[in-house]
């Protein structure tokens, strides 16, 4: 009896915990969408994060349309080939994929419109994209061969195949933050389909916006900037250490000695006292910790 009670308590505790997590996660996503968190360096990334947040809100809300989006994957990207291999159940009808995309293009419209000129352009582009998609799929519904529409879509996606991989990497990196399909009870095979599908939709919308070609550059640029910042931090540490090595505070403070008077003459940092600049002394510290601390 007591064991049953304790089991029940444990289950309710876990449930509460999961619920609290869900609440925190929802709040996080909401604030992310409202740009309350640290904004990403690139405007493109910002828009991308907004779209991801919106898509995840949909998943959280258990919107069945998200699941309906999973359709046949175009051949081209290795990820999508993987998707084909994994998702036997992902073989859905062409019309469901098409209608899924139409829904997604409507749904990924950024809510926040205070992002400056790019955002306005994005909105305009997305609206245009949506209308193109709508017209294409309405034609599809009215009897035009679905295969043509899908082939066109596939060729578009194939062009953006490389960028889809980049986006995949981006989303994988943020997976824990923005995706928690497991908790929603989505099957693993279906999960990867949804993720690939999300990436495909975002890529498609970016392609329509004409931003897609710029996206990888902006991503790699941000990464390079971060690396250069880290290296600069280490360079500054090196300079600081050299400064400490070359002149102790007592030597600098010794104002009576004329020799020292010359030595403590400042340039950008104290003058060396004993052969300061011959060879580089090894400095014992862990750069990884330094970067983490920075």
């Amino acid at each position: 009896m007591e064991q049953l009670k304790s089991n029940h308590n444990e289950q309710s505790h876990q449930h509460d915990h999961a619920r609290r997590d869900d609440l925190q996660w929802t709040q996080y996503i909401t604030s992310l969408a409202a740009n309350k968190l640290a904004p990403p360096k690139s405007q493109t990334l910002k828009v991308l994060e907004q779209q991801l947040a919106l898509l995840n809100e949909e998943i959280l809300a258990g919107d069945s349309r998200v699941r309906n989006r999973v359709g046949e994957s175009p051949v081209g990207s290795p990820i999508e080939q993987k998707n084909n291999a994994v998702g036997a159940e992902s073989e859905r009808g062409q019309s469901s994929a098409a209608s899924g995309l139409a829904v997604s293009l409507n749904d990924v419209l950024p809510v926040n419109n205070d992002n400056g000129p790019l955002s306005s352009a994005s909105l305009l582009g997305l609206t245009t994209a949506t209308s193109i998609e709508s017209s294409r799929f309405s034609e599809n519904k009215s009897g035009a061969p679905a295969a043509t529409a899908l082939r066109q879509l596939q060729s578009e996606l194939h062009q953006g195949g490389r960028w889809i991989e980049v986006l995949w990497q981006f989303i994988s990196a943020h997976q824990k933050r923005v995706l928690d399909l497991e908790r929603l009870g989505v099957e693993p095979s279906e999960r990867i389909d949804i993720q690939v599908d999300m990436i495909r939709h975002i890529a498609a919308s970016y392609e329509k916006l004409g931003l897609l070609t710029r996206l990888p550059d902006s991503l790699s640029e941000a990464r390079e900037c971060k690396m250069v910042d880290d290296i600069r931090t280490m360079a500054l540490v090196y300079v600081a250490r050299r400064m400490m090595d070359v002149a102790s505070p007592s030597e600098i403070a010794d104002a009576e000695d004329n020799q020292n008077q010359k030595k403590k003459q400042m340039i950008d940092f104290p003058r060396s006292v004993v052969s300061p600049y011959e060879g580089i002394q090894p400095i014992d510290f862990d750069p990884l910790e330094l970067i983490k601390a920075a």
Partner: protein
Amino acid sequence: MLEVINRYDEVFQIEMDGWCFGITNYPGEVSAQVVHRIIRELASSFQAAIEHNVVFDVLELSTKFSSAARSLIHEQEIAFGIVAQLPNPSTLTEDQQCVLGMVLDKVEQKYPGSLDTFYRRWQIGVREAA
């Protein structure tokens, strides 16, 4: 020989050592693009060095950067990258032009024809500015 202003040669030396130290000890893999980005960032330091009459050795510096980047980039590529960041002679005073000439002389000796390349480039820069 022009006198170095404010012992800037030491500042320059330590700054370059610092960057090399950073590249060497960076925990991840340093790509060629990152090294080139760093060299682009150093443009102001090169200009300051010339303005302070520091005749620095581009070849030595490029060797240092190349070994810091685990020989990922050839010294010549780095040397040309550095020279590309040097200020346009038309923006310098006579003394500074002399310093720049001495800096470039070593590069020209090792890689003949490099001076012509950059001279043409600077000419284009002057024409564009006009």
